[in-house]
């Protein structure tokens, strides 16, 4: 390979093409993910079993009436909780570590086999079934919300230091100060109960009408914090030289904002936005519970309440995996919006 710019032979190393370097970078990032996932898994395991013992789990599943010690032993045997937690001193060799609850419940997750919940249902199947409802709320909330938050922030930036800007910021602070629960209950009361525009809660059947209210409430609930954040980004950009140059060229303020400022503000926006895209699958704990949406958020809450470790560890593992995927996607997205960024 010809090395035109090199002045010394040492500097003229053969560098692989960018695509190869990027793939190598991604593989490296994926390998970094392994110890993170193991660590998260270990932490979840430790935290869960500090609070609950296998006996507690058995009692929770068997109920409080007429539970005999034999029934508890049997339940633990059937569900694989009759082994030591981390180290099996009774075993020899590798079995000291593999014949434990930690290993038996964790190893299979790395091939995405989540096993069965304590009530006997296939967790992978549940996750696949519940992703749809979670996405049907989270995705429109995310997309429509992004457009609205960015537009509102641009509007405040456009009218910066005017009464409209102050009113906008005040509104944002007010909206931020109100609990998300209030939006849900208030929205259900006003839109569902008083105005009869959509069902108060529920999912399925008619489809669209069940999604409107949680999406609207989700968007309103996020306006305050997100719009203020984007406004701060845009205000930082608006003072830069390229904006002055754009104005000097005679561009309108709208063109300056929507074409130049927005494009240059993409890196900080993407930092916050892309990372959450994979997590949309995980759903919202509160919204799903109040609207009766059978998504992954309510699945996690139910599992925590029922002390179902199998589901809790699966959901935490999945959350970690998606978060790591989000971080990698964010890195890739930088290269798409800013040609100066190169992954290597």
């Amino acid at each position, binding site marked *: 390979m010809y090395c035109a710019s090199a002045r010394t032979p040492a500097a003229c190393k053969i560098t692989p093409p960018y695509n190869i370097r990027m793939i190598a970078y991604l593989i490296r990032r994926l390998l970094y993910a392994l110890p993170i996932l193991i660590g998260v898994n270990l932490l979840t395991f430790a935290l869960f079993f500090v609070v609950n013992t296998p006996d507690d789990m058995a*009692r929770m599943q068997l*109920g409080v009436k*007429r539970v005999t010690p034999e029934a508890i032993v049997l339940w633990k045997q059937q569900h694989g909780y009759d082994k030591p937690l981390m180290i099996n001193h009774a075993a020899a060799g590798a079995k000291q570590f593999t014949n434990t609850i930690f290993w038996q419940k964790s190893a299979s997750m790395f091939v995405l086999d989540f096993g069965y919940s304590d009530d006997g249902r296939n967790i992978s199947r549940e996750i696949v079934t519940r992703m749809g409802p979670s996405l049907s709320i989270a995705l429109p909330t995310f997309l429509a919300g992004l457009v609205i938050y960015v537009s509102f922030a641009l509007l405040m930036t456009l009218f910066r230091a005017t009464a409209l800007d102050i009113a906008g910021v005040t509104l944002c602070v007010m909206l931020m100060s109100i609990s998300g629960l209030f939006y849900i209950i208030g929205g259900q009361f006003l839109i569902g109960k008083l105005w009869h525009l959509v069902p108060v809660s529920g999912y399925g059947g008619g489809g669209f009408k069940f999604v409107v209210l949680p999406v609207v409430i989700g968007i309103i609930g996020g306006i305050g914090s997100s719009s203020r954040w984007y406004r701060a980004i845009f205000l930082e950009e608006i003072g830069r030289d390229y904006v002055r140059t754009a104005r000097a060229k005679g561009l*309108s303020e709208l063109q300056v904002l929507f074409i130049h400022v927005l494009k240059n503000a993409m890196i900080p926006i993407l930092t916050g936005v892309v990372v959450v895209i994979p997590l949309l699958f995980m759903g919202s704990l509160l919204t799903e519970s*109040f609207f009766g949406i059978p998504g992954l958020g309510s699945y996690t809450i139910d599992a925590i309440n029922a002390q179902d470790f199998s589901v809790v560890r699966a959901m935490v593992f999945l959350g970690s995996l998606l978060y790591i995927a989000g971080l990698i996607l964010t890195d890739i997205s930088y290269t798409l919006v800013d040609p100066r960024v190169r992954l290597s």
Partner: protein
Amino acid sequence: MKYIAGFLLLTLLTACDVWNNPYPSADAGKAILYTAFTERPKHLDPAQAYSENEYAFLANIYAPPLQYHYLKRPYQLVPQAADSMPVITYLDSRQRQLPADAPAEKIAFSVYEIHIKPGMHYQPHPAFARDAQGLPEYFHLKPADLNDIHAPGDFSHSGTRVVTAADYVYQIKRLANPQLHQPIFGVMSEYIIGLKEYAQTLQQTLKKHPDDFLDLTALPLPGVTVVNETTYRITIHGKYPQFAYWLAMPFFAPMPPEAERFYAQAGMKERNLTLDWWPVGSGPYYLSQNDPNRLMVLSKNPDYHSELYPAEGEAGDLPAGLLADAGHPLPLTDKVVFTLEKETIPYWSKFLQGYYDASGISSDSFDQAIQVTGGGEASVSGAMQAQGITLSTSVATSTLYTGFNWLDPVVGGCGRHIPSPQSSPLMDESKQSDSTCNPERARKLRQAISIAVDFEEFISIFANGRGIAAQSPIPPGIFGYREGAAGINSVVYDWVNGAPERKPLTAAKRLLAEAGYPDGVDEKTHQPLVINLDTTASGVGDKAHLDWMRKQFNQLGVQLVVRSTDYNRFQDKVRRGDTQMFYYGWNADYPDPENFLFLLDGAQGKVNHGGENASNYSNPEYDRLFNEMKNMENSPDRQLIIDRMLTILHDDSPWLWGYHPKNYVLQHGWLYNVKPNVMATNKLKYWRVDAKLRDERRAQWNKPVLWPLWLGGSAMLLFALWIWHVLRQRENARSLQDNSPV
């Protein structure tokens, strides 16, 4: 294009009168009952399910031999799948028949002979499907055959068959299957002949052939035998009259062996196709849709023809219209739709909109729904009356109490703790300090606290008046409960002007002084008396009632320390006897005093025997009377023994008797035949709906309010125009500025 989209949207929005209907419009006018469930069931296998939320489904799917009469009170058992009540034969230890009135101690065995109705059929199910040769069609499935199967209804064929006595026997065998969680195996193995040994046999068989299907039909159970196609016998140890109540639970419903074999095939469990999720019953309904995360639907079993609406009831039932459907085949609705509602607010809102046919009342909605008259009678508020909503109330066969730990040296009866391997060394030490315990002193202390804690006030403040203060563990409606002066707890109440009146605080203070704690101070140590209350209540919402409890103790000068803890630790403390006082409760399994009084039987002590006596109360005389009473039929003699037992309990006061909660149920005017029945869990088959009236009311109550949409849309449009105008002005001003001469 914009105009077309706007027109389409407007057309869509105005096309139907009701926008907020959560159900498909195709279901309008159908005999469907709409209700909700707040927690997904864990088990739907009749051998494993034992919770109220599981029975809400199961009791309507499976048909055990007996059931509770829907209308008659006191609660009485009547045949359901059986064609008559079981014939009970008593035998002595040499298998000789004894007369029906033989003393319990002479009875070595009781034989229950049960005749089931001939011609009953199971629900349609693929496990019964047969091919052209008459062989089971789906018994040799490969995992690949299940690719498009998500529910039993996805199979192309289904079948049914006649219910036989062998199916009932098969289900009893399943109660000992070690592969299943067996909630009543412990109780039943004490009674049903050979059940304990049967479980061991099954365990050994499983060890030998762990991968094989466990065929229970090949392994006989000596205590349960098939006599003929429609008759079977259950032989139990001794006399156990309460056994008949168990026969009304799904534990004893029929189970076709082919259903278990069908679900045992490879690939089924991975698809959540198990007997625990897809029941196969012979009851009035079958589970046609099972999405426990959202919706569960019971559909009418087309092969259920064995039952008619009862023709007899109580005196007031005829005028109340509860006998209008007498003689009609059950069930009276085609479908029951259960929607998951975890939160009370949306549940209540949808009930008011007519989307649920009946509802309970949460504390948040109580004032909106109920008004209490001057005489203390509860009725629905004016707004509810205008909607045609009516109220029915009943006292639950439950008791919510506060227990004293009998093993505690301060409040207990100086019972001895037998150390177990699980006991903590610290706790053992404290429980051994019996030398400091004075039973008489502790008894008076418990009595003083019983008087001071005013449960009438508690019910009024924290339960909206929905409950009655308990005089003993036995709630109203259960044999042994006495009305009037004869039934009061004379340690706590006086009978004044025809009603119980709590003794004055001075009586409690006097008892406290006699106990050696004048004004709440220990006269020996001169230290204030401190009592600990263990509870799982720790939320913000619990603070008020815990403060109220502290106030009750403060009246005596006693300091109450509330030790809030999580559920697991609380149960652990109770199991180890590491408490002084604790909140607890009990829901009846069956309407018999034995099911309440056993909670204080010494042999049931939680710490020493792992039983249900959470306060570890022990009194030899009480235990003796309990053993005498438990096997008796209801009779004046039994009542006398119960009276004596209750007198002992009142005197010992091992519990603050707490209260029996009252159930308040609201129902819409289109729902008929609703009569509170706290024992029956299979009530849905009796309920009838007037779907036409419901549709009319829903349309009337749910007309969409459109002005907010127009107002909001207009405001946004005006705002957008104003912004546009301001921007235009700015641009113009800038252009002028740029073009102006320097």
